[in-house]
């Protein structure tokens, strides 16, 4: 936990100026608030008990008191604002760093990490760190300064009696540490049990039909009751510890010290070592209360601190995940022919998803990659997109290995149309443009090429139609067309279609094919298609089966032999009778 804490502190140290200001203000605020009881003491001892009623000096005291209160309140506010600003700046920095980092993580990381927890790292955990800064660190700073300020003020009044009150500090520190030690395991246990309860509950609700069909209601209720009751016991224990050690104990010690203090004053008076001034007693009693409050405050924030540190360590763990490697010397490919030489590829290191896939795509060719579900065709395209590194083998474009291409060049070169088109909230035009500096005409041109123009024009706001909720107001086919238009607008030299026309009716598909054929010769086109009619016209078809190349040739060639391609084709001529 310590390294996590110091790493967090380092972020705050970036804001030296604001920190200095905050601490300066804190000192002023503390001085002002400590001054109050002192001024009252002066009033009591110099005027009230002596029966001196000089108007001007008393008025002076009153003005000083009010001024101290106002300055104290203002500086307290200004200090809190500084601390908040520092905390929020740190969180902003952390969030930006985290997000940038997540964008640079290998795709494989996302395959094994639940999106929910990743989001939580960037949002909830950083929010918890904010609480650490605002409530815990700034609170501790304020309370510590306050305690020392009060002790110093006390020592001016009476050094001997100050030490009685100072006894509270080590006692409280020991208390805090032992509380932390004793309560942490109980507290953690209660938390774990609560998580268990929620998991169990959630799972039981989701799986209720299974529980009921197997007649296990009673057993599940029993198990749930057991966890819930254990949680109850843990909390009672937790409360007992809190009750014994927190507020009640500090209040107790406070009352004892108060007694000791008065005893001290009484003995001083009795021993005639010097007449006790009533104002001093007044101030001391006031100050003692001022020392107790911060201590109670700090003890009750310890658990919050611990939770926040857990969040922080999760955040740092994510930040320490290795990013995708940087490319070596960037080379600019002069040609756009693609050479696939994949000896083998596996996601998990055990099961090969691709083996011995070797072929070459000439510039301007149209090739189709077909195969049954799980044949590895999408994986092959993911490799070309450099989503996963090829570990055994190599893919090169224009003779340059993917490894040597920078992301920038690769993205300029290759246009990739995914199966699930991602629609951003915004207008249709925005969705085609994204952040490219495209003119209206270029957008319309791309939409026409993708056969989406007419559908857009039929919408009330045309290209300015706002797409809400990930494009729920578009059909699945229209979303795919939009994705195609977006890619075509960037005029890629290599175009990859990954099941990009799966949800498009056959009429529109034919139209798209016509547009794509116009690109033929200038743009290298690779299409993955489950629907074979899409790739019928390809220069070359590659048929994958369980990760290896089973057949290749043109449609005509492949149809002439009895084999996988022909059977797939025949299958698709019929409609699946089990589908509605």
């Amino acid at each position, binding site marked *: 936990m310590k390294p996590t804490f110091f790493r967090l502190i380092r972020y705050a140290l970036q804001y030296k100026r604001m920190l200095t200001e905050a601490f300066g203000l804190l000192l002023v605020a503390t001085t002002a608030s400590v001054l*109050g009881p002192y001024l009252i003491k002066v009033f009591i001892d110099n005027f*009230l*008990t002596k029966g001196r009623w000089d108007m001007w000096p008393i008025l002076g005291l*009153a003005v000083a008191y009010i001024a101290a209160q106002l300055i104290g*309140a203002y500086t*307290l506010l200004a200090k*809190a*604002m500084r601390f*908040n600003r520092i905390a929020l*700046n740190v*969180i*902003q920095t952390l*969030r*930006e760093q985290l997000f940038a980092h*997540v*964008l640079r993580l290998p*795709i494989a990381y996302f395959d094994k990490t639940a*999106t929910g927890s990743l*989001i939580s790292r960037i949002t909830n955990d950083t*929010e918890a760190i904010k609480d650490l800064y605002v409530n815990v660190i700034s609170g501790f700073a304020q309370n510590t300064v306050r305690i020392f300020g009060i002790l110093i003020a006390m020592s001016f009044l009476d050094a001997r009696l100050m030490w009685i009150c100072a006894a509270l500090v080590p006692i409280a520190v020991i208390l805090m540490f032992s509380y932390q030690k004793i309560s942490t395991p109980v507290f953690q246990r209660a938390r774990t049990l609560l998580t268990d309860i929620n998991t169990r*509950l959630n799972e*039981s*609700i*989701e*799986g*209720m039909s299974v529980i009921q*069909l*197997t*007649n*296990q209601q009673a057993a599940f*209720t029993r198990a*749930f009751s057991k966890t*819930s*009751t254990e*949680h*109850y016991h843990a909390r*009672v224990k937790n*409360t007992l510890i809190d*009750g014994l050690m927190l507020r*009640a104990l500090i*209040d*107790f010690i406070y*009352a004892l010290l108060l007694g000791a203090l*008065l*005893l001290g*004053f*009484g003995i001083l008076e009795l021993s005639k070592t010097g007449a006790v001034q*009533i104002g001093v*007693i007044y101030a001391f*009693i006031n100050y003692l209360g001022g020392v107790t409050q911060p201590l109670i405050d700090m003890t009750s924030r310890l658990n919050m601190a611990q939770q926040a540190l857990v969040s922080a360590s999760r955040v740092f763990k994510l930040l320490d995940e290795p990013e995708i490697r940087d490319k070596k010397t960037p080379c600019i490919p002069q040609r756009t022919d693609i050479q696939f030489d994949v000896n083998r590829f596996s996601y998990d290191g055990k099961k090969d998803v691709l083996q011995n896939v070797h072929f070459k795509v000439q510039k301007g060719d149209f090739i189709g990659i077909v195969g*049954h579900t799980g044949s590895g065709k999408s994986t092959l395209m993911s490799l070309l*997109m450099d989503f996963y590194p090829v570990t055994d083998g190599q893919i090169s474009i224009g003779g340059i290995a993917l490894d040597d291409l920078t992301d920038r060049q*690769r993205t300029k070169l290759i246009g*990739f149309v995914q199966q699930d088109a*991602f629609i951003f909230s915004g207008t249709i035009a925005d969705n085609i443009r994204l*952040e490219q500096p495209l003119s209206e005409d270029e957008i319309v041109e791309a939409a026409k090429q993708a056969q989406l123009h007419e559908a857009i024009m039929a919408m009330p706001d045309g290209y300015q139609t706002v797409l809400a909720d990930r494009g729920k107001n578009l059909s699945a086919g229209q979303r795919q067309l939009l994705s195609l238009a977006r890619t075509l607008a960037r005029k890629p030299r290599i175009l990859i279609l990954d099941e990009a026309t799966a949800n498009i009716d056959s009429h529109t598909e034919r139209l798209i094919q016509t547009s794509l054929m116009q690109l033929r010769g200038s743009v290298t086109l690779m299409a993955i298609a489950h629907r074979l009619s899409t790739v019928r016209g390809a220069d070359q078809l590659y048929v994958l089966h369980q990760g290896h190349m089973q057949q290749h040739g043109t449609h005509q060639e492949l149809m002439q032999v009895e*084999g*996988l391609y022909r059977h*797939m084709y025949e299958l698709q001529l*019929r409609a699946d009778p089990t589908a509605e």
Partner: protein
Amino acid sequence: MSVLLKLAWFFRQEWRRYGMASLALVGVGLLTMIPPWMIGHIVDSLADGTVTRPALYRRVGTIAVAAVGSYILRVVWRIALFGASFKLANQLRRKLFMHFTLQPPGFYQKMTTGDLMARATNDIRAVEMTAGEAVLALFDGAFTGLLVLVMMTVFISWPLTLVALIPWPIVGYFMWRFGRQLHASFKDAQARFSDLNDDVQESISALRLTRAFGRESAEQEQFNQIATAASQANMDVARTDSKYDPAIQLGIGFSFFLSVAGGAFLIYHGRLTLGQLTSFTLYLGYMIWPMFAIGWLLNLVERGQAAYQRIEELLAMKPDIADEGNIADSLNPDLSMNIDRFAYENGNDILKNIQVGLPAGHMLGIVGHTGSGKSTLVNLLLRLNESPHAAITLGGYPLSQLSLDNLRAHIATVPQTPFLFSTTIAENIALAKPEATQAEIEQAAKTAQIHDDIIRFPDGYQTPVGERGVTLSGGQKQRIAIARALLLDAPVLVLDDALSAVDVKTEQSILRHLREVRRGKSTVMVCHRLSAVETAHEIIVLHQGGIAERGSHNELLKEDGWYRKTYDYQQLEQTVEEGR
């Protein structure tokens, strides 16, 4: 406040704890009044020099005794009161869980898991706080507040009390204003935070697109903007939130100022002593918390009220399938279904004219296209739905005459989507029969063709399922669900499209083993793939809710209907899947 009346049953049930807590709280309140009083006397005796050792010791001793008493009573009320409120939470949670187990599938279609979870977590927490913290606030606010007020007005000086309390209505007004501002800015901050969540979610979903288009910087820029907005909204919250402390400090400062000024005036006129003034300022310190407690109390009760009402509504929901059957004996498992028509509420007929019987020991196949009514038929058979126009009998008795328990003991079901709990594989298989031996579990697993997969997992049968253990494929989950149902060895086994994710070879192997172990028992096989029903004694083909074809596999093949067409299609599909 009516929620406190509604919870009266619980206060009665826990009258000992609440009684003890009340007594302890009253005791603490009374004891708290002692130290300031004693301090006043000590100060007076010091001021006029009448202090004596015995009197000093007696007074300090009283303070110490009061401190010890307060400490003990504080621990007591905390345990009694919070213990009781935790108990309420435990009781309600268990009651809700029990209630959940009685609800039919319709209930879970109406209510989302999130909703139910919110009832069982947040709402219970709110009610718990009403039974704990709110009761505390009631005592602290009302009782302690009044007690202090009595001490200040009756025993010291009512005019001074009036003067000293002048700042508080003003502070209260500002608190109220801050509260309103805070509410507004807090809502805004929450909205910005959820924007942040949405943005991260969207960015992670669109990650491949981002990589393919090289639009990392655009994503980052958008995120930074949204994070900045969130940060600014948080700053607005902080701006208001930071005003609370200075405002309270000012209130306290001025209150003290006024009491010392007013006190000095009274002392000058000989109507107050210095000791009384000291006591007074100490009592004044005790007034601060009760003033906040009232506001807190109202807030807690309001939230508890709404929460308790939602929980009550949930508990009032009655299952629409009444479990009133009283036949609890084993019956001869002859099934007969006689369905004139069946429709869901306000819907079209899903099933019509279905007459089919399943003699003990036979296998019935139910096939048909998606949406033909297969699942509805299974639901009626399991009495998850019922209708007067759908007569289904088991051993000659209508299903409603059997207790639900007994019905489910007769029919073991493998549902369409297998649901596994996050425990070990062994426990998942033995879900319906927790007392099953390892040998029995393994036997069931072998029949379901999952045994070999299981022993390859790191901990074999003891491997946990889910996040903390192995991630299972759809086919593996289905086979575990089959093993689970087999272990019951029920007279009737219903497989509701339970082999869809299993390949044909494994499917055939499972079926072969099933025939052996289930000799003499009945099976209902609902499926998409016809290979699963080849050996059925009778197969019915559903089409738009009615029986379109019926007969054995061979008979149906001869008819040139849906069955024949589907069979041919699936044969070809199989060829393609095998890569031929």
